[in-house]
Structures are given as structure tokens and as C-alpha cells.
């Protein structure tokens, strides 16, 4: 029985079999024997999350544009599927051709989230490959990685042959070609990796030696002879002309973002000091409105979606946002296609935009004040005051929303009881505003609901807070308890992160290679899908850390600004001096404005990596009819 038949006969045994069948509309299926190079893109979480990820879709279509490259997909199998695969002897397979993953030339993972690491290991194993890079040879696929957390890939570095640092559209096709060329030449793995290390953005972890001093801190990161000292992040310039797919796959099952995705811009310079995305996707680059309208037309025609989501790190900051929304709503009104925004700022303007596209009926509005007091918001550089929130909330209630979600973080640097209490205060006052407006309203409004969501702050690499200590578990519990006690009653809802999970994420976010064996042990003990509360098992992780002699405090504690951090050899293009300056300003409660609206803040991105700000959203507005 071939794999296709085996799946057809057996998938009824697992939950959500649609995760494993592929054959979605717009899927690209090529003949295995008619191509030169075969790549499988792997997402270390379930299908419905992986299929919502824009980056992989861009790469999928970019690689498949080439006739001689076959690019397929694989997602992490849910535990019930893993069990079935084991029982029926089904190896990890690609969705399109149902090919064994170990038959491909390249197995390319995207690193999205620290708590997906055990899934990566599991997938390498299910593919029948040795886990560690140095155990694999030239007959195995090259295991490569990239993505959002690739800027500190050290905890998983020993499992990977190669990382691509930065926006992969810039170099993935060339990289794939070179890998194939060297494989065809029959180069030994080590020779091949050495040659590949010359390519821009390519980081071969095995070519860098990490030394530690007696206290356990890194004393040196030394590249092998002739290997570049720093790996520069690769950045797309002229986003407006950059490749963007229009023939998006249309999944059968309900996925997290089941709509046409239009990436209107990349990067954000608001400068929130906790936010790694705000540092690692600089500079801000926008697409032109005319380009976006054309893309939207083509995506809608090829997918049949009835909703377009304008996505970006901060959608409302797009320089032509109002015109874009006006043009799109007019254009698609008759076809009953709706427009949605992926994020809102805490201000009236955002509410006005949301009202224009009639998100009212869909769901509540979400605002992210992030911290409970004006003081703490200055520390984290979230440039809004409580009055901004009250005005935005008032506008939202008046426009008919009855439910508002507020995002906060707990455990931010310098946080006091007063700041935690500020969360309670803000939530209650927003609730009061809502109730007053509901009472005064002539329309029938549902009872006001304020949903407060608190996550735990985790210091991340390449942010001004990369040196600070993470708050410990007892402290998190205490703060969460306080909120639970004080944020109850009608109209209030509170949700929070599992503290054990946050602590673990904190360990790996700033971790180094000594954590790789911990991942292996945890995986062996059964850790999978650790980001999923129902599957997360803290007992496994405690044991895994202990068995490997790792003291978690070593990873959670503060660093000195002179320390060699595990990611010191990765060059994001942001000056370390800028991060230090921002750290100092944080402690002094000083606000640093966005460089798009005020002067340059000196992060250096526009001067260091041959990239520059591209604010073109407002340009070239032409009549689209």
C-alpha cells in the first residue's frame, strides 16, 4: 500500500484529518522526477497555525516559481497523528506529493517561537534523520532554519546545519541553488557548509566555537579560520517591487487567519523597548497603494476569499492607511468583501478606521496599553497616556462596540505594585466609560465587557531590555493573584499566561548552545507542543534541566552591558550602543519618539546594512477605475 492509500484508509483515526491531506486550492504539485532540487518547508506547529504564516507562503511561491525547484510543505503532527504514524510506519511526509521528508535536498524550518523547539526535534526524528548536525552526512537533507526567532538560534544551533539570518526572499533561491550544486559535486558535508558560509546571511553554527569562563558566562565566540566574524541580517530593499504571492493556497479547514493577507508594510520604529519585532524588522518599508490594490484584486480572484486583512507590525501607522481603506472599501463593497486590520493603535483615529470598515459586527476591539501607569509606559517607550486610552475607548463604545480587550504585560522592568494596580484601575475606568455610554445610548447595546489579558514580560535578544533579569515565578504568581482578586465582577474578564511556560520561554529566549541537550532530554521524555497549555508539562522540563545540570537562574538573571551575549555574532544592523542608550533612557523614564515623525534615534539601521526607510504609502495615489 502506498502512503497516499495508507492515509486515505487511516486518517479517520485522528482528530482533524484535514491537517494531513494537502491538495488545497492553489497548491503547487510538481513531478518529483522532473525537477533538479527538492525543498520541504517545515513549520513546527500544527497546520492551522502554520498555514496562517505569511513568511512561509512567500518562500513557497518564490521557490516554486522556478520550474526546476519543487517546494512542498510539512507541519508538526498532533500527538494522535504521531501515534498513528508510528503504528502504521508512516514517516514524516510532505503534503503535496506525500514524499518522505528525508528524500528532499533541503529541510527548511521556520523558527517562530521558542516553545516550538521540541517540535523541531520531533520532526527531524520522525523524518528518520539523526538529530544533531554533526551526526548527519551528505546523503541526508540539509537541515536549515530561519524566521522570527533566528536572531538567537543558539539553543537549537547543534540540530541545524545552517541558518539564514534575515528576510529570506533576498537569498533563498541562490542558497538553494548552491546547496544543490555542492550536493551534485558530491562535496562532503563539512566542505559544503564551509563553502556555503560565504553566502550573505548564511550562518553555519558548527563553524563557530563558543567558550565559557568559570562562572559559566561566554568568554569568546570564535569563527573557524577564514569564516566571517559576524553574520549580517539580510534585508529586502524596495519592498514595493519585492515578490509577493497572489495565488495563495485556500485551506479546507478553518485556520487561524483564514483570509486574504495583504502585507502593507514591514518594520516598525515605534521603539517599544520590550519588542523584538520592533527592532528586528527595521527599517520601515511600505508598499504603494496602487501596488496593494492590484495585489488585492489578484489575490481575491485567485482564492475566492471574502475578506482582506491589511497586515503589518502596526497597520495604522501605514502612511496612506486612510486612503488605502477608502479605496478598498469602495472597490469591494458590491462584491461583499470585507476589510480587516491586523492591529490598532490606542487612539481615536484607529477607532475611526475600524468603524469605517465596519468591524463592529465581527468582534471586540483590542487595545494594547501594555502597562498600567503612564510612568511605566515611559519606561517601555509605549507612547500613549491613559487619556489616549480613555478617548479611544469612548470612541469605540460610541461607535457601538460593547466589548474591549486590553493587553498588558506583567513583570516589566521597574514595575511596582502601583503599576500592577494601574492595570486594575484602567480596566475599571474603561468599564465605567462603557457603562455610561451604554446608559446614554439610544441604540440597544450589549452589556459592556472588558477582557484584560496579561502576559508575562520576557526579556528578548536585540532589545534594550536584553540585559535585564526576568521576573521570577513567585513574583508572577503574586501579581497574577492580585489581578485575579481585584479584576472580578460583572463585565470583567481576566486571562493570563502559565508562569512555568513563561519562565521556560525566558530561559530559551536568551539561551545558548548548552541548552540543546535539555531540549533533547525533554523531547525524549515526551515534550511536544509546549506552547499549548493542554500539552505543556512543567515536570518534564524541570527534570530535563536538572538532568543536564542547568541552573535556570543563570539564564533568567541580569547581564552586564559588557557581556558577550550568545547572539553577539549575529548582526541585526542595530548598534549595541543604541540598545544601551535606550536601556538607560528606560531607567530614566525618558520617551524616545518614532524616527518617522521626529529626528533619527541613531539605531543605525539606515547606515549599516544598505537599507533605508521606504515611506511610499501616500505616493502615487491614482484613480483605480
Amino acid at each position: 500500500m502506498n502512503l497516499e492509500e495508507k492515509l486515505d484508509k487511516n486518517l479517520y483515526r485522528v482528530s482533524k484529518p484535514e491537517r494531513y491531506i494537502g491538495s488545497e486550492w492553489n497548491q503547487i504539485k510538481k513531478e518529483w522526477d522532473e525537477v533538479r532540487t527538492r525543498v520541504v518547508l517545515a513549520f513546527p506547529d500544527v497546520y492551522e497555525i502554520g498555514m496562517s504564516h505569511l513568511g512561509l507562503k512567500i518562500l513557497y511561491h518564490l521557490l516554486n516559481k522556478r520550474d526546476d525547484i519543487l517546494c512542498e510543505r510539512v507541519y508538526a503532527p498532533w500527538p494522535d497523528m504521531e501515534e498513528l504514524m508510528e503504528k502504521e510506519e508512516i514517516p514524516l511526509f510532505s503534503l503535496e506529493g506525500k514524499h518522505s521528508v528525508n528524500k528532499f535536498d533541503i529541510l527548511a524550518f521556520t523558527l517562530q517561537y521558542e516553545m516550538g523547539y521540541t517540535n523541531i526535534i520531533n520532526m527531524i526524528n520522525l523524518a528518520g534523520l539523526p538529530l544533531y548536525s554533526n551526526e548527519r552526512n551528505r546523503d541526508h537533507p540539509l537541515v536549515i532554519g530561519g524566521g522570527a526567532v533566528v536572531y538567537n538560534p543558539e539553543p537549537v544551533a547543534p540540530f541545524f546545519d545552517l541558518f539564514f539570518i534575515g528576510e529570506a526572499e533576498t537569498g533563498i533561491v541562490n542558497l538553494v541553488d548552491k546547496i544543490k550544486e555542492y550536493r551534485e559535486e558530491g562535496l562532503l558535508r563539512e566542505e559544503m557548509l564551509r563553502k556555503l558560509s560565504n553566502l550573505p546571511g548564511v550562518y553555519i553554527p558548527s563553524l563557530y566555537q563558543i567558550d565559557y569562563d568559570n562562572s559559566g558566562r561566554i568568554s569568546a565566540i570564535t569563527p573557524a579560520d577564514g569564516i566571517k566574524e559576524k553574520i549580517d541580517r539580510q534585508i529586502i530593499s524596495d519592498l514595493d517591487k519585492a515578490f509577493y504571492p497572489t495565488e495563495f493556497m485556500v485551506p479546507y479547514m478553518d485556520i487561524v487567519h483564514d483570509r486574504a493577507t495583504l502585507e502593507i508594510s514591514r518594520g516598525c520604529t515605534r521603539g517599544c523597548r520590550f519588542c523584538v519585532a520592533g527592532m528586528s524588522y527595521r527599517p520601515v518599508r511600505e508598499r504603494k497603494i496602487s501596488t496593494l490594490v492590484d495585489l488585492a484584486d489578484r489575490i481575491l480572484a485567485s482564492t475566492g476569499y471574502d475578506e482582506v486583512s491589511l497586515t503589518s507590525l502596526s497597520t495604522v501607522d501605514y502612511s496612506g492607511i486612510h486612503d488605502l481603506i477608502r479605496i478598498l472599501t469602495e472597490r469591494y463593497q458590491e462584491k461583499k468583501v470585507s476589510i480587516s486590520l491586523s492591529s490598532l493603535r490606542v487612539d481615536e483615529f484607529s477607532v475611526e478606521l475600524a468603524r469605517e470598515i465596519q468591524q463592529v459586527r465581527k468582534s471586540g476591539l483590542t487595545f494594547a496599553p501594555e502597562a498600567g501607569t503612564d510612568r511605566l509606559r515611559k519606561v517601555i517607550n509605549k507612547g500613549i497616556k491613559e487619556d489616549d486610552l480613555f478617548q479611544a475607548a469612548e470612541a469605540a463604545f460610541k461607535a457601538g462596540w460593547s466589548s474591549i480587550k486590553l493587553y498588558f504585560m506583567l513583570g516589566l522592568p521597574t514595575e511596582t505594585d502601583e503599576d500592577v494596580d494601574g492595570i486594575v484601575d484602567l480596566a475599571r475606568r474603561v468599564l465605567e466609560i462603557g457603562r455610561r455610554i451604554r446608559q446614554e445610548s439610544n441604540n440597544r447595546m450589549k452589556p459592556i465587557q472588558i477582557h484584560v489579558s496579561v502576559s508575562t514580560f520576557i526579556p528578548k535578544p536585540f532589545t534594550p531590555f536584553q540585559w535585564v533579569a526576568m521576573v521570577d515565578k513567585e513574583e508572577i504568581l503574586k501579581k497574577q493573584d492580585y489581578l485575579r482578586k481585584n479584576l472580578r465582577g460583572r463585565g470583567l474578564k481576566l486571562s493570563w499566561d502559565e508562569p512555568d511556560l513563561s519562565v521556560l520561554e525566558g530561559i530559551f529566549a536568551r539561551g545558548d548552545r548548552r541548552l540543546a541537550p535539555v531540549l533533547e532530554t525533554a523531547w525524549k521524555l515526551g515534550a511536544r507542543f509546549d506552547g499549548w497549555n493542554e500539552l505543556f508539562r512543567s515536570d518534564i522540563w524541570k527534570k530535563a534541566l536538572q538532568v543536564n545540570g542547568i541552573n535556570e537562574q543563570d539564564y533568567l538573571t541580569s547581564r552586564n552591558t559588557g557581556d558577550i551575549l550568545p547572539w553577539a555574532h549575529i548582526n541585526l544592523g542595530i548598534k549595541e550602543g543604541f540598545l544601551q542608550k535606550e536601556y538607560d533612557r528606560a531607567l530614566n523614564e525618558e520617551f524616545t519618539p518614532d524616527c518617522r515623525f521626529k529626528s533619527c534615534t541613531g539605531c543605525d539601521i539606515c547606515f549599516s546594512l544598505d537599507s533605508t526607510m521606504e515611506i511610499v504609502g501616500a505616493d502615487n495615489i491614482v484613480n483605480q477605475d
Partner: protein
Amino acid sequence: MLIRTKYAKLKPLRYISHLELMNVLRRAFRRAEIPTAFTGGFNPHVKLSLSQPLSVGMTGCSEYFDLELAEEMPPKIFREKLSVFLPAGLELLETREVSAATKSLQAVADTAIYRITMNIDDGLDEERIIKDFMSLPEIKVTRERRNKKDRVIDLKPMIHNIEIIDQAVWDFTVSTGSRGNVRTEELLRALAERFEGIKEVPEVNIERRGLYKRINDELYQPFAKKVTGS
């Protein structure tokens, strides 16, 4: 303009649920630029309705959907246009215009034929078993109900015919819909509980052959004049 379409849901899509299938169709209508009619209000929906849901895992060779169009379109053109934009595993077999007054598919179809590849021990007398089974005075099984207590029901009046098609391949003609519904899983359980050598089989062994309206013991397709009145 109301049109009724007969289609087949085949192997490649057997694991797609009823709601997912509706989404597949809605998106295909858009890709094919079919002039669908929408409901009014804040959240407009395509006026699409399907015949009784097919369980995940089963295939169906005569399924139906009704669609209201905002503009006239010859049924043949509709079928040709839409077919281009359907994924593999979904085949349109026939489209006819029906009068706007026609009753909904779920109200019309009261009988289904399921073809089940049985799990029967070798050497059993299949004809004998069917004869014995059909002559039982009652066939009680426990029905599990979501969020409700289990209930014992009698399948007897809802099983109309069982026919052997091939060795261990049987066609069951049973009631379906809101006025009496037989679940294949209950049918198989009833057999397995009463006859040694018969075991239950999963949904992938089952094909729904068709949906019908039963009038005086005769089966009519949802297209038939007797059913649509047009």
C-alpha cells in the same frame, strides 16, 4: 433563480466536514464569478443550502446543493463555469433550475442508500443474516446524543431494505433527516450485537449512494417532478 445541483464528494475530500464543504463551494462561486444572491443584513451570506451532512470519512456519489442566483444563468453554463474552480474530489453531475417554491433539500430527502463494505467472517451466509435481521420484530439500539442522555430507539421502522451487491458489500436503504434518521454507526452496531462474525466498520468503508424522497415505497431523486413540482 433557484438551481439544484447534484454532485459527488469523492475520496480526496472524504475528510472534509460539512461546514468546510460549504466554504469550499462559497469560495469556488467567487473564483468562478457566479452571480450568487446574498441574504440581507449586517452579515450577508450566500443563499446556499446542502442536503443532509455526510459524515467525515464517507464518500457520496449523489449529493445535492441548492443555490440562489441573483441573475439568470443557464444551468449548463453554471456547471461548466463552476467545475473549473473546484478542487479534485468534487464533481458536479447535473444542475437544474427549480421553482422558487420548491421545498428545501433537507425537507425533501427522507431516505438514503448507504453502500457499506462489511467486515464479515468468511463462510457466513449473508442472505440468511439479512433475512433474519429484517424479520426481527424490533431492532433496539442505544443512541448517544450530544449534551443529552443516551436514549434507546427502535431502528426497525426506519430500515427499508438491505441488498447484497457483492460479497460483503451491502446496500442499506434507510430513513434520513429530521423525521427519523438512521446513523450508519447504529446500523452496524445493531448487526454486530446480534450476529456473531459481523464487526463494525469505520466511515471510510461507507459510500452514500443517493438521497431520495420516498413516496408510496418508491424512491424519487430530489430533482424529480413529483418532488419539485416543476
